[in-house]
């Protein structure tokens, strides 16, 4: 019994230690933003990589999410003669929840994994140590631009995902469920409030930060050659995905719980 409790205690302490290291890593990286040098070109390159190159995968998932949402809402609501709520449900679900979450998960898989692999490989091949010997702070040069880019790029990506997702719902509503296209669009805008979109964009910024932080942290901490890099990549994607879902609930509770 004592052995069981001790192992739970050890796990809890290890968890706290990891959280502490992660917070210290984030604070040190963000602290580098206070003083120059800055690397605007690197930030721009990361914004293009995270935002622009994620557009196809995020757009594709967003359009099908909107389409399936319209279809499912219609089949469910038709049981209560509430088919007219389909457009509203689609736009609110996409802007508040599905846009940020789907985009976040897709970017976590695409970008988080790539960041962990790139920085992890740099770690195990001494490239990060080489940065230090060349008088360059690795947190400032490698991590900060990625954190800033994640923070900036995700809201734009989610805004595009929102539009594409709503458009997917419109396609199914207008051409499969035979809604009047004009009244579908009218209903889409009728109940949509600024806060619905803004809350989704704030979530996106938080998710962008979390994805890049997890990618950078696990890559930076990786040890032990190719196996270590593979492990770092897995940890980056899994931890970012879980944190996205947990933070989604917490942020929803903050924004909309009454």
């Amino acid at each position, binding site marked *: 019994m004592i052995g069981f409790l001790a192992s739970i205690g050890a796990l809890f302490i290890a968890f706290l230690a990891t959280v502490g290291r992660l917070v210290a890593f984030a604070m040190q990286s963000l602290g580098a933003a206070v003083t120059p040098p800055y690397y605007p070109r690197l930030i721009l390159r990361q914004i293009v990589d995270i935002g622009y190159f994620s557009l196809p995968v995020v757009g594709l998932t967003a359009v099908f999410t909107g389409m399936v949402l319209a279809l499912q809402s219609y089949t469910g609501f038709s049981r209560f003669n509430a088919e007219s709520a389909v457009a509203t449900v689609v736009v609110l679900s996409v802007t508040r929840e599905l846009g940020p979450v789907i985009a976040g998960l897709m970017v976590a898989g695409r970008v988080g994994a790539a960041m962990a692999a790139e920085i992890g490989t740099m770690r195990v091949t001494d490239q990060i*140590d080489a940065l230090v010997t060349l008088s360059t702070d690795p947190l400032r040069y490698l991590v900060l631009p990625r954190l800033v880019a994640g923070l900036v790029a995700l809201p734009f990506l989610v805004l595009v995902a929102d539009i594409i997702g709503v458009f997917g719902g419109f396609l199914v509503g207008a051409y499969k469920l035979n809604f009047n296209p004009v009244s579908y669009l009218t209903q889409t805008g009728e109940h949509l409030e600024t806060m619905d979109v803004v809350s989704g964009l704030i979530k996106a910024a938080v998710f962008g930060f979390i994805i890049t932080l997890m990618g950078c942290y696990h890559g930076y901490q990786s040890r032990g050659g190719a196996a270590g890099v593979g492990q770092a990549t897995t940890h980056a994607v899994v931890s970012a995905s879980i944190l996205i879902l947990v933070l989604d609930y917490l942020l929803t509770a903050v924004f909309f719980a009454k």
Partner: protein
Amino acid sequence: MSDPIAPKISVRGLKKSFGPKRVLDGVDFDCAAGESLVIIGGSGTGKSVLLRSILGLLRPDAGSIRVDGMETQGLRGAARMSLMHRFGMLFQDGALFDSLRVWENVAFGLIQGRGMASDEAREIAMKKLAAVGLGPEVGALSPAELSGGMQKRVALARAIAAEPEILFFDEPTTGLDPIMADVINHLIVDCVRELGATAISITHDMVSTRKIADRVAMLHNGRIIWQGPTAEIDHPDNAHVDQFVHGRAEGPIQMEVRAA
């Protein structure tokens, strides 16, 4: 103003453990200005740990590392970066940045570390590449397109690009054929001489040691057990060094080989 008699680098009582394994157990040595010191020792004796501790890449558990009489332990932030300006390092596997072209690798410390304009840094990078026997066409290539020997030469060009006072070489000839190893050894000697730099190298390659060292020190069981001029390594007054230098399996150094 540094004391002309004081050693350029002075290490005292340096200790470093990883968990229960004590790797460095009180390392003491000095390296004079302009001297090329080679630290020899078997695999896993802590040579790389020692070098990384001096560079500040690892934090020792105890001991003192002084550069020009100034204690470097505990230096952080800008003070550490300022110290790094005085160092150049050649990593064992080159550690070239594979996302950058060759000339960008060589110019990296000048542009990012010292804020030099890109054009000026590129010009210097090309000169340094020429100094290690590489033509300007190599500058536009990516490190992945180079052979092992060429990567080592690019890494050497990067290490000397900012003309540092102190150069560190981590196993500079490991993984190279004997001819390329000799080319690298010659380049190291030429570069160190031309810069008038102080050099600390770690290696277990005795051919390389004889070529690049003014003085040799041997690390064993976490301590420097012998040091002396290069000319003395063939007739040392130490059985460990004698066994290592002549590469004999029999002697006081016992390899941990477990029967299958």
